[in-house]
């Protein structure tokens, strides 16, 4: 029960949950941000609702999720998703609204459709903000996965910590925490690598500014 292979298995499980929650948060978060930025009315209606929902402590929702989704992976992914999605929405919406007025004017004079403006201008403008949000979201998704595993699980690093605690096995707790820290660093670094690949104009210019 303490072999490196066993720890590796638990780590892979937690990373899987984190990743699933993260991807769901990115997909849903970006779509939601686009919707509230593009349609003022939906912003007024949905955004307060969304903020209200976010103010509910997610840990308190965990037992509900287990009732609804059973004890499998789904409730853990749902918690990771819920904790992570807020950062994605806030940062993406900020980014989508950060288009310089000159560029919006330019787009108008070229008589581009709203879709063109969104796809060619707004999404690119949002990217630096989006990636800042993704880094926060990734670390929050990891927290979410651990919370989910605390509440009900037979697997994962959260379960390792909880069960070791029950046996006063401090060493095992520390081992799991150390692994968690490393996993956190690696996941954030992975986002940073994707960021560098996705925004070559930000990083490949031989000269900065002018």
């Amino acid at each position: 029960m303490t072999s490196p292979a066993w720890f590796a298995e638990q780590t892979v499980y937690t990373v899987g949950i984190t990743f699933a929650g993260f991807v769901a948060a990115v997909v849903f978060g970006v779509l939601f941000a686009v919707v509230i930025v593009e349609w003022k009315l939906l912003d007024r209606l949905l955004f307060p609702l969304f903020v209200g929902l976010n103010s509910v402590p997610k840990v308190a929702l965990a037992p509900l999720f287990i009732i609804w989704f059973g004890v499998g992976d789904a409730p853990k992914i749902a918690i990771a998703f819920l904790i992570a999605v807020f950062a994605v929405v806030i940062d993406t919406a900020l980014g989508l609204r950060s288009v310089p007025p000159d560029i919006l004017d330019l787009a108008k004079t070229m008589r581009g459709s709203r879709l063109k403006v969104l796809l060619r201008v707004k999404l690119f403008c949002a990217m630096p903000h989006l990636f800042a949000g993704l880094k926060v979201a990734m670390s929050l998704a990891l927290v979410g996965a651990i919370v989910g595993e605390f509440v009900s699980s037979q697997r994962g690093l959260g379960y390792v910590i909880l069960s070791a605690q029950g046996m006063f096995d401090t060493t095992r707790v520390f081992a799991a925490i150390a692994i968690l820290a490393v996993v956190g660093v690696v996941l954030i670094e992975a986002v940073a690598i994707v960021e560098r690949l996705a925004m070559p104009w930000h990083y490949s210019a031989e000269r900065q500014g002018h």
Partner: protein
Amino acid sequence: MIHASQVTKQFGHGHKGVTALNGISLTINEGEFVSLLGPSGCGKSTFLRCLAGIETASSGNLLIDGKPIAGPPDRLGMAFQRDALLDWFDVLENVLLPADFGNKRKCDYEPRARELLEMAGLSAFIHSYPRALSGGMRQRVAICRSLLLDPRLLLMDEPFGALDALTRDQLNVDLHHLSQQRNMTVVFVTHSISEAVFLSTRVVVFSPRPGRIVEDIAIDLPRERRLAVRESKEFGDHARHIRGLFEKMGLIHD
């Protein structure tokens, strides 16, 4: 081609409101190069934005080819004070943007874009990102972009305002040649008297806010101009006359 009569523009209401334009009447014919010259904040940009259809006049008539301006007119090119390049596209894609936004096939316009960039001396930078370019190069890219679809009407809002004197002179010469070669109407906003006189067939001088037209001056220099024309007597006379107008408005004094 453009006909403005008693155009006013008011931002906001009541005593907090700002009157940016106050009764502008102006006719611009096909093929003219008209410079708008005036102190900062007098409404030059506002007038240009009304022409571009991205701002609507509060009152008065603003016609283009006899029809009121509602939205950006057909075959419009526009260059902004800050170049408004998209950092995330390379130079070629930036120049092709008007084709893309107009739902035209980009490959049809690529030869044209390359030709424009070649003319602007930017062939070597076709695949560079704007961040890797100097201010003057960026501005040239922006001008190539505004020319891609062969505009009939080119609106330029202090496109060279942020450049050093040397680059500015060069771009003035280039723009002059361009406007000679193709038959387009140019409305050009600037702060520089000599730039206005050098480029224009007409210089329209605005008063401080609320902007009114103080004088509409035909520049009768030869159509084909070189930088040396700036040393000529006629050029000096025009420049002196315009400076005199600014002195009379109390905007400059010795």
